[in-house]
């Protein structure tokens, strides 16, 4: 534990926080100005979320904060205190790819792969609210994630295929 008091005053430029990332609890001390993305990558080693533009435009740093997709470059780590965070590393279960991961693979939804973790995290939030989306809706849903390789076409295919797989799973069929 770090000293809460410096020169007799409570030091509010540093904070003790607890982050639960992919169901693992981490306790750490961070500066007030530390961004969530840097905490995840540099302190905790979750390098799935990427640093792209650092200005909330590209979406490469997207993670789920309490179940909602957010750009982790535009949230302070201290704001995420006591929150549940899911990064792309948390999608596969027991060595089996999540349907969205297998869809991106099957549909060639990536080339360099830099935007892919963010694309997947945004797409999953989008699909939660649009379980049966049109292709236009998918494009609109992913407007906050930039890809500079694919031209988006195969990404839209991958999200469309994920929607079908998730619908089969929720109706009890096999994916």
């Amino acid at each position: 534990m770090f000293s809460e008091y410096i020169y007799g005053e409570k030091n509010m430029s540093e904070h003790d926080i607890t982050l639960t990332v992919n169901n693992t609890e981490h306790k750490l001390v961070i500066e007030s100005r530390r961004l969530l993305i840097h905490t995840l990558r540099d302190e905790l080693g979750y390098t799935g979320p990427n640093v792209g533009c650092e200005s909330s435009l590209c979406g490469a740093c997207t993670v789920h904060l309490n179940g909602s997709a957010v750009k982790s470059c535009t949230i302070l780590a201290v704001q995420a205190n006591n929150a549940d965070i899911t990064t792309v590393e948390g999608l596969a279960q027991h060595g089996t790819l999540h349907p969205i991961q297998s869809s991106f693979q099957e549909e060639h939804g990536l080339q360099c792969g830099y935007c892919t973790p963010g694309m997947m995290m945004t797409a999953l939030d989008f699909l939660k609210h649009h379980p049966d989306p049109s292709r236009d809706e998918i494009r609109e849903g992913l407007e906050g994630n930039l890809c500079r390789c694919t031209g988006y076409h195969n990404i839209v295919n991958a999200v469309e295929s994920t929607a079908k797989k998730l619908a089969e799973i929720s109706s009890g069929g096999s994916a």
Partner: protein
Amino acid sequence: MYPSRFDYYQATTLSELFDLISEHGEEMIEFLAGGHSLLPMMKTGLASPDILIDLNNIEELHGVEQNETTTCIGAMERYSDISRNNIAKTNCPVLTEAVSLVGDIQVRNRGTLGGNIAHNDPASDPPAAILASQATLHVHGPSGKRTIKEDDFFTGLYETSLEDDEILTKIEIQNIGNGGGAYLKKPSPSSGYAMIGTAVVLHSTDGIIDTARVAVIGAVDHATRLTGVEDALVGSPATHESAISAAEHALEGIEDYMVMEDLQASAEYREHLIGVYAKRATMAAIDNLPK
């Protein structure tokens, strides 16, 4: 891109907030809402507060509540929650449409209505919807509460009638009732901000428009009403023809020098868009009047 050093405080009640404000009265304080304008400004050095007070966990700033003629939305309600809220969707459809068009999914999951309105970006969607819908802005400061009408709230470029030590607590929006409304925007192709965004709320009796509120964002340095269009609509039949002729008055009261200009749109083009979007949004509002 790191913000410069600051002290971070989380207030959980309004009284805790005002204690913090008075305790740090000598220092530069910023209030943190959704953070999607403030944090980018802090990262680029445009804002460098000594003290950052997080308002997100103040219970009094949350919730959506329906009254007889109004709907109250807590200042810290996020765009995504508002756009999915059935009370808000029924009573203030123009506002829910506008917030559903802000930024992208991730931005809407964080950004708050109160933060947006207090920031008063000249190209952001919600202020136009607030002006057209009519609202009472509830404000709280160390010396107590007061209310501000929508027409007196947005005063200039990133300027509002809020004092430095006041915060917006809730936005009380007039229910649309048996009216019809619409919000239409032409987004900037790169940023998604409104090149022009137009909000319209109409009421009619026996097919004749008896009240009209038309407001535009992205045109001049803050959200502003197109009173020429409003005046032309009142007393006219609720038809597309009325929308077309009313839109000819779109630039009344807007001087050439006031119109914003940037790489993507010259002032001349924006003036053209003001008319086009006044027409289209009014037509859409007419279509949305109950039959």
